[in-house]
């Protein structure tokens, strides 16, 4: 990434309080690799020409790293804030400004001599904003989300870079699954269309991998039930099936509940319906913490604040 940014969340306090901010900008044609894509900060995609603002006065003598969030890697973490994208040559969705819990990522220089006036004021606002976030909660990182498999279906499609679909994608799967995969862009897309809603990771030793951090498995139970593992409707169906008549589906549903409901919040008495009535507004499905239905950090923050009352 260079000195530019786009997709700024301009109504956020970091661009408004306590200092007003304004940025010079350049108009550019949409890069080919952004075509047809959306991101949390570009929910309708990028128009044919779009505006990039200057965070630094000129191109740095090197590169600034971005947080890769293609089409929302982290949007399933309650409270995560996408605040600006960097000018990435890879794909849309590379964050230059972002907050998760007590951590803020500033993807540009912090040297006021390099920053534009708008960026300098934004940096001050970030300091101000973050001091309010001392008690912000988030979840620990356990594994990469499944989104990376989708990214491989797009990354390099227009530039001829094939290592993603030929090497990284298959080697991110458990060995048995690799025979279901054809190492090409088309093969990757076909695999993703069929299996992605049922992919999980981060739970067993077999999911750990030194090279790729984690390997992905396909949940045959969730797939047989036609229940994407991150959907609330699926959770509610598993709960209904789990108390139903004995049979294959009940077994599958019970295994799914055990697999995806975090041990810290499972019902001790096995009464999933009562449990869900109590927890439905408190829980969220989060992939990067290990593909769990778990207490939302935003809810925990709110409850902690309420204890003062």
């Amino acid at each position: 990434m260079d000195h530019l940014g786009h997709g700024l969340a301009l109504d956020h306090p970091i661009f408004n309080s306590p200092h007003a901010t304004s940025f010079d900008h350049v108009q550019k044609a949409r890069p080919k690799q952004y075509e047809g894509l959306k991101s949390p900060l570009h929910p309708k995609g990028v128009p044919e020409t779009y505006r990039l603002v200057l965070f630094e006065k000129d191109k740095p003598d090197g590169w600034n790293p971005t947080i890769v969030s293609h089409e929302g890697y982290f949007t399933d973490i309650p409270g995560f804030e996408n605040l600006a994208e960097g000018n990435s040559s890879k794909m849309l969705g590379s964050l230059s400004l972002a907050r998760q819990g007590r951590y803020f990522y500033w993807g540009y220089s912090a040297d006021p001599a390099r920053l534009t006036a708008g960026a300098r004021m934004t940096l001050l606002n970030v300091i101000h904003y973050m001091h309010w976030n001392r008690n912000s909660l988030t979840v620990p990182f356990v594994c990469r989300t499944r989104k990376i498999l989708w990214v491989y279906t797009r990354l390099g499609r227009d530039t001829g870079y094939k290592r993603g679909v030929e090497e990284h994608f298959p080697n991110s799967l458990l060995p048995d699954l690799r025979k279901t995969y054809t190492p090409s862009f088309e093969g990757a897309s076909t695999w993703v269309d069929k299996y992605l809603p049922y992919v999980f990771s981060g739970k067993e030793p077999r999911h750990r991998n030194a090279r790729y951090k984690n390997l992905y498995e396909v949940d045959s139970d969730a797939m047989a039930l036609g229940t994407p593992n991150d959907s609330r409707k699926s959770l509610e169906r598993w709960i209904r099936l789990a108390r139903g008549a004995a049979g294959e589906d009940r077994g599958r549903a019970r295994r799914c509940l055990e697999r995806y409901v975090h041990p810290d919040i499972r019902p001790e008495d096995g009464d999933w319906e009562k449990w869900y009535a109590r927890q439905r507004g408190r829980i969220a499905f989060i992939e990067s913490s290990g593909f769990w239905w778990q207490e939302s950090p935003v809810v925990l923050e709110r409850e902690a604040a309420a204890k003062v009352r």
Partner: protein
Amino acid sequence: MNASTWLLTLCLLWTTAAGQQPMEIVGLPANAPLTLSASASNDELTLDVKMKPGWHLYAKDVGGGEPVSVTIEEGAAFTARKPLVVPKGTAGKLTGAFRLVLPLKRSGPRDALKARFAFMACDPIECLPPMSVTLTGSIPQAHEQGVEERLKVLLVVDVADSRSQRISDFFGKHGLATTVATYWEVTKSACDASDVVLADSKLFRKSVKGSRARVLAFPKTSSPIVAVGFLGTELIEAHGIAMTSGYI
């Protein structure tokens, strides 16, 4: 000027002097046997209640009806600093004119205050169903510059040099109290004692040799961290935060 105009003028003067902002009241049922006004400052939310003759609310649970409560709603930039201050009343009953005060603490940068006042009104014979009203208002930050002046920033760098001096000078010019430490010197207690830690980074491979190893051992502080650039991504990853997991 008649008596009511004098009273209004007096109220306005008091509101301005105390930094109180009027709160909008929504949802008070027409049959509620009381009148209500509310205002708030950065420190407290004040409700002035006047009961119709013969009616009362409950200050505490005496077995007759729900006691009064005021709770902050989601989306507000405030939390309650202490429990609601309620007059004792007579045998737990609140009659006539009385004031409820909720001590507040600002918890966010925005100005919105939204609260719910819940109560049950009774006369000697019967109680009306529980009622609640929503109070909304906008409370500007008091002495905005003063808040910023109090902020203590710990600037952590690979080496104290002209760059760190520029950052420190810039923050100082804008009222931030900045202390500089290197990645070799920084301690958890110094981080914890700061309002915000800014972990700086030069461009990739341009920081002092050995910086990355020090960043990987960065103290797990309870203070918020603004993590900059390359070393920032390493720090966030070392602290087990998901947002740097997306590298390809």
